[in-house]
């Protein structure tokens, strides 16, 4: 009984294909996140197999494929940069790491839940669970860049300028990427 009910909640897709990446994919994707305006083609490439099902390519071949490595690393980098900033100011305590971690996990989960609820309201059928995790996780990259800029460059004007720019570029990236889903 428990077995069936628990396995209803475990996602059934193969998570490994979100981690099949290499150096150049990560580099290009980061450039895409920070400057998405030059890119012309946003559709995901289907895999060239002879099956009937629509299967998309892995991230090695296709730059538009979502992956889970960048969100994970972005998340941890965000926590780390904030800890370094706190440490430079002189108030570091190892418990801050776990505090930041739980706070950020809560925000991340909230974001995923809001997006999932939006999908439910607009009756979108054909999405994958890990795709949502991936696309909402990309936000940590601009946020980390923002924290770095605020810490290193330090002025308010530069901070607001870069904030608005990164907001626009991230929004553009998300809209174009998820067009095929919604």
């Amino acid at each position, binding site marked *: 009984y428990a077995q069936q009910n628990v396995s209803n909640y475990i996602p059934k897709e193969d*998570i*490994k294909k979100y*981690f*099949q*990446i*290499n*150096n*150049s994919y*990560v580099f290009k994707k980061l450039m895409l996140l920070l400057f998405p305006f030059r890119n012309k083609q946003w559709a995901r490439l289907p895999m060239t197999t002879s099956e009937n099902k629509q299967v998309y390519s892995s991230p090695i071949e296709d730059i538009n494929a979502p992956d889970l*490595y960048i969100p*994970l*690393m972005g998340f*941890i*980098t965000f926590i*780390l940069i904030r*800890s*370094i900033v706190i*440490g430079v100011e*002189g108030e*570091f305590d*190892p418990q801050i*790491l776990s505090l930041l971690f739980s706070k950020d996990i809560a925000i991340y989960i909230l974001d995923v839940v809001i997006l999932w609820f939006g999908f439910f309201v607009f009756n979108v059928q054909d999405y994958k669970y890990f795709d949502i995790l991936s696309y909402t996780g990309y936000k940590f990259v601009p946020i980390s860049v923002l924290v770095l800029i605020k810490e290193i460059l330090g002025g308010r004007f530069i901070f607001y300028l870069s904030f608005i720019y990164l907001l626009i570029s991230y929004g553009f990236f998300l809209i174009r990427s998820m067009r095929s889903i919604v």
Partner: protein
Amino acid sequence: MAFNYNQQQNPQYNTYKPNNLEFYQYSGQQQNQQYAANSFVNPGLSGPMTNTFNPTSATTVGDLTGSIGDTQLSHGILAAFSTSGYPGEAPLLEELGINFQHIKMKTLAVLNFRSKNLVNNPEILGDSDLAGPILFGVMLGAFLLLNGKFHFSYIYGVDLIGIISLHQLFKLMANSEVENIDIIKTGSVIGYCLLPLVILSGINVVINLNNFLGYILTGLFIFWCTFSSSYFFMVAFKLSNVRILIAYPLAILYSIFALFIIF
């Protein structure tokens, strides 16, 4: 103590023998062994346990009385304080699996960047041994203690969580031709490459590193750690073209340790 108990109880049980206790006759080795398991409080009910109770007969009952029986251990008070055990027993370090030659070779490989020894002998790399990493972890904690920070549990916790999550990540990132990577091997590699951070915490004892020059030095040491550990992982996992991707989570893990050291 069991002997006295038996001798005391014996006179009583000799006179009192109810009929239903005839069932517990000595009738076979297995029953007697099982009986010997809970036997020392039931004296006098089966054959060898009656008035003639003495140590040598106890050894014929079963294997349990090996500690009381004196067949293989040496006698005398000098032998009681020495380290000789049963004959044919392996030496202690070999039983524990700690091999000093391997530890020294792996440590030198981390320190020198020259890991030709390791690549030529793959069984050293595959010798999943956690003694070196635990030693380095304790040394790190000791140097931190010299600095006035008592962070042993944080080191251990961060290390453990880092090893588990990094192992899962590398398993996900590895392609399917590689054989199964053990979590102990990941932990071993990560722990050995902690050595430059131990050196950094040793430096931190004499020079305070909480200034700009210290940050640069820390960055160099973190780079050293990730360089050697990503090299080991590249060799072990046979991944190609993902060196920076492997190095980045490792750099994060070592940066968390460096945070403990500096701040």
